[in-house]
């Protein structure tokens, strides 16, 4: 079987799940870049580069961080906001668009202000998003949504997962904590300060 790379789409109307193509999830301390297991620091750098070179970098916070349901969620929200502020200071087109819940909302959804996992392509097309990061989205909905995005759009996807990661994203991190999100923010700031972007 030839090696499968998780590349940005549009791949197909029904793209295969990366797991079915032999892509395996990273171990703690590791991440995935386009299906290859790498050290997490390397994935951080790549994600930061993608954010800094994007036209419309966007964060998609999901219910696990939008709602204040425990102390960690509140700390993650603050960390995500810091990342957003850094991206916004670099690129005024940066966005953060919420995914408040998973009810199918087509065709009522307003793609300018929210994203729905059942038709994420609408929000990505409407806002011309070329790089996005999922954070705080329940895994089963993130898997669904990331596949739809890869299938129908040319958006580069990053997943900051609190569990074991998402092989259907182009870059994935696992075991997300507020501190890990801050490391990504610091990486973006460091690369930005290098003057290459």
């Amino acid at each position, binding site marked *: 079987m030839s090696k499968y790379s998780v590349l940005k789409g549009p791949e197909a109307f029904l793209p295969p799940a990366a797991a079915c193509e032999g892509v395996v999830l990273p171990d703690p301390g590791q991440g995935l870049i386009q299906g290859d297991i790498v050290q997490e620091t390397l994935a951080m750098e790549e994600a930061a580069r993608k954010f800094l070179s994007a036209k419309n970098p966007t964060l998609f*916070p999901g219910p696990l961080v939008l709602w204040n349901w425990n102390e960690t969620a509140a700390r993650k*929200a603050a960390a995500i*906001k810091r990342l957003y502020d850094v991206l916004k200071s670099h690129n005024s087109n940066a966005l953060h668009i*919420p995914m408040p819940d998973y009810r199918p909302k087509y065709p009522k959804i307003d793609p300018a202000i929210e994203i729905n996992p059942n038709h994420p392509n609408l929000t990505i097309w409407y806002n011309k998003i070329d790089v996005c990061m999922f954070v705080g989205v329940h895994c089963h909905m993130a898997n669904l949504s990331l596949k739809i995005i890869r299938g129908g759009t040319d958006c580069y996807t990053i997943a900051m997962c609190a569990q074991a990661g998402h092989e259907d994203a182009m870059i994935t991190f696992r075991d997300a904590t507020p501190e890990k999100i801050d490391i990504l923010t610091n990486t973006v700031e460091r690369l930005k300060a290098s003057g290459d972007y």
Partner: protein
Amino acid sequence: MSKEKIKINQEFYDIMPLEYRELVEEGTYGKENRGWKDVGESKELIEEHSLCAGCPESIAFRYVLACLPAPEDTIMVGSTGCTSLVFPHVAVHNIHSLFGNQNAVASGLKRALSFRFPDKIKDVVVLAGDGATVDIGLDMTLQSWFRQEKFTTICFDNELYANTGGQSSGLMQKGFVAKMAPAGKKFDKVPLPEIAKSSGCHYVVKMTVSKPNRVEKAIREAILVAREIGPTYIQLYTPCILEIGKQMMEGLQEMRDSEGPNKRFEFEEYVSDEARAYLDTVNPKKKKRKKAIVTK
């Protein structure tokens, strides 16, 4: 879960769509005297339902949600049917069970919640159609009653399988001809309220939803009895206007026509002695509280 957890992180408050902010600010979670009068005034826990225009089931659904004593600590268990088209829009925890399994799922859920949260009150409410409750799920319905599982079962009785085109159901009245039952129903409507009484339910009501005050009383009392005493059952007539050839404005009249004396949905209530004694201890407190609220 506590209503304190229904809060938006302040970092994202400004980007959350309006409907979610309204739910937090104007929802009736934690409001002690919530009831049907909140419908149309406060933020409802169901809006923009996906049922047909004028569907009596949508009215019933709104009343039920408006009358839950503690929606923030309630989990509803639904089944396949028109109700399952609405549950995705409901701002209360809910589970969609396999068709007919709703009372089995609720039994396990209630036991698990009692084990996981021994010091908290967690209400489990089953809401299913007549096909799921009486035909395909009758085994699970009865077993939960026999075993005295402490949750409320609400049956939206539209007297046929509406969602699949009008097949005959056990709760259909004898002789009724439907699109997919052209020869007419061959046997009498299953007397589920009677069966509920003899199967161990402590509070049983059969009614239409034409009178919201009555619906509120029944829902509240059924859930309160289920918390403390044992299983309760409410059968609500929610006619399918499409399948019985009515217009969208005729649903309410259909219910009124069906609840008169000696009609099949004449109001019936059964309260066991144990449940009555318990309700007597609860209701004076409620009256006092309402009086205190009015005098403020």
